[in-house]
């Protein structure tokens, strides 16, 4: 068997557009000020627990930036954190639910805006777990020794789909309102290298696992089709745009009745990782978990505590309440904040967990904090 290199996360960055928007400021951006919508919004916000978020929209609800700009700003923050330039990258892996344009791929657009030199690009599409799919691809290439340095970014500009103009004249149920008052914009990025950071701690990537259970689950989160299953001739690409809009195909929807199933499936995936020994519960120090709403925080936390009795809230990290649910960007935005808060110490392990409702995907990454090489030399 061949020898591979090791992949380390050496730089962390995020970009959240504009000022934080509290719950009272949402309607100014997204609209929906009628009494019925107002009541639904309050109810959804009470359940998801999000207190503030960011939108790339001005106070009139007009876009201020492109998704690719959010991605590039997060990448610059991560590159600056590491002290390298875009020209030092050999690969760029980008995750997003929806880029700004249909063609070309999101990563091509991000690379074009970022600059630097020639590099491999990958656009991982999907929803929340596409973040770790992109990370996995970059980490794999680093391990193979094909590239010395890569960057990974998760970026979302969901707010464009959440504005009132997407809801005018369309009968919207809980399936679209649930997401409308939950999703927001932002980007998070990491730098991946085959050597640890020369003078600061790094996160060694021990493994990444992503699994889809679409073979046994219907679609849960969707856009671009009228029902929950695509029909020949019936997707947004087949019918007139006005008709597609009238049918609500451009609204992001989530079948909320499936979310309990999603939580159960995610917990089963975690259990399996414990059972096959990939997660050693005696040596798991931190959990950074993405979840869409606080309703799932307690479910996930309690499920993990069944296997890790010593898990307490100090070792559990989420910034959902203050940064919002930014889809594929969320896990990187959370990791960045946790990392720079100084809560991780060398030798400790970190589990990233990202369930994706889309059609039941789950991604996990196991990381270990390593001291910079000079300090390792001293301690051993």
């Amino acid at each position, binding site marked *: 068997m*061949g*020898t591979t290199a090791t992949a380390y996360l050496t730089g962390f960055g995020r970009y959240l557009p504009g000022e934080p928007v509290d719950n009272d400021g949402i309607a100014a951006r997204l609209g929906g000020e009628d009494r019925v919508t107002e009541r639904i919004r309050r109810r959804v916000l009470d359940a998801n627990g999000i207190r503030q978020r960011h939108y790339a929209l001005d106070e009139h609800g007009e876009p201020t930036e492109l998704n690719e700009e959010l991605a590039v700003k997060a990448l610059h923050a991560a590159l600056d954190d590491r002290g390298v330039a875009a020209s030092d990258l050999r690969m760029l892996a980008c995750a997003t639910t929806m880029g700004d344009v249909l063609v070309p791929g999101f990563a091509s657009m991000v690379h074009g805006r970022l600059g630097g030199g020639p590099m491999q690009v990958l656009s991982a599409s999907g929803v929340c777990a596409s973040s770790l799919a992109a990370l996995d691809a970059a980490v794999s290439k680093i391990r*193979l*020794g*094909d590239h*010395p*340095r890569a960057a990974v970014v998760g970026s979302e500009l969901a707010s464009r789909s959440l504005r009132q103009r997407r809801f005018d004249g369309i009968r919207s149920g809980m399936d679209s309102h649930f997401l409308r008052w939950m999703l927001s914009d932002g980007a998070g990025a990491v730098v991946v290298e*085959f*050597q640890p950071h020369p003078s600061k701690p790094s996160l060694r990537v021990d493994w990444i696992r992503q699994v889809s259970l679409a073979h046994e689950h219907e679609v849960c989160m969707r856009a671009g089709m009228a029902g929950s299953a695509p029909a020949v001739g019936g997707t947004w690409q087949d019918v007139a745009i006005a008709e597609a809009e009238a049918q609500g195909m451009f609204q992001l929807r989530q079948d909320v009745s499936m979310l309990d199933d999603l939580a159960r499936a995610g917990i089963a995936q975690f259990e399996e990782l414990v059972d096959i020994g990939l997660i050693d519960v005696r040596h798991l120090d931190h959990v950074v978990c993405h979840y869409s709403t606080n309703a799932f925080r307690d479910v996930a936390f309690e499920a993990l505590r069944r296997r890790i009795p010593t898990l307490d809230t100090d070792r559990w990290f989420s910034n959902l309440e203050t940064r919002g649910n930014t889809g594929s960007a969320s896990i990187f935005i959370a990791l960045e904040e946790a990392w720079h808060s100084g809560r991780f110490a060398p030798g400790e392990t970190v589990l990233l967990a990202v369930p994706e409702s889309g059609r039941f995907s789950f991604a996990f990454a196991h990381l270990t904090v390593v001291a910079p090489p000079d300090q390792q030399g001293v301690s051993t």
Partner: protein
Amino acid sequence: MTTTTTDRVSSTPANTASLADRLAEVWIELEERLGQVPVLSRLAQGTVTLDDYQRLLFNLRQQVVDGSPWISRAASNFDIDHFELRAAAIRHAEEEHRDYLMIERDYVAVGGSLEDLRRGRKNVGSEALSGYMFHYADHPNPVGLLGAMFIIEGLGAKRAAGWASRFQEVLGLADSQVRFMTYHQEADSAHTGDLEAILTSGLIDDAAADEIVRCAQVVARLYALQLEELDR
């Protein structure tokens, strides 16, 4: 100092030992000297850095690009009475003349810039080594170069793979980042097999044997110098 130098130069080696034994002696001396080379002792101690590996590749590349040209030049200077050696040299030159590309890929794979690498110049040891090889290859029937091959191919066959796995161990490198050094274990083992066949074929008379040993001594010293003088 001048008297001792004169003594050394005038002393012709005793020819009683076999060619193989005499070359083995040169090899042992080279091994001792390599143990003193800073980058190799850091490698042995496990204190070598990624920068060391990059510098080593950078410095080797500037000389390795000349490897095939000097062998080709030597090939063109073997007359028809040395047909076997000419044939071997032509074959060997062909096999080696893309080797530097492997160093370039390794260098880029560990984060180096191809432009910088290609703009690089030989260090003083590489200048001396390359200059000597081209100079020697210009001689009619440069049989002594078998001694140079004995050293250079020997390093590839006996040492390079060990260096590669030690670099991998210390720096956590993937196989695809140490291709040049690992490749040479296989390629140069084949070459040293060919070389031994020639050395024991009866083609080598006493005068040629002296040439071979002398050339091996010079190349051993200059190769070590190249490793000692990184970036200078």
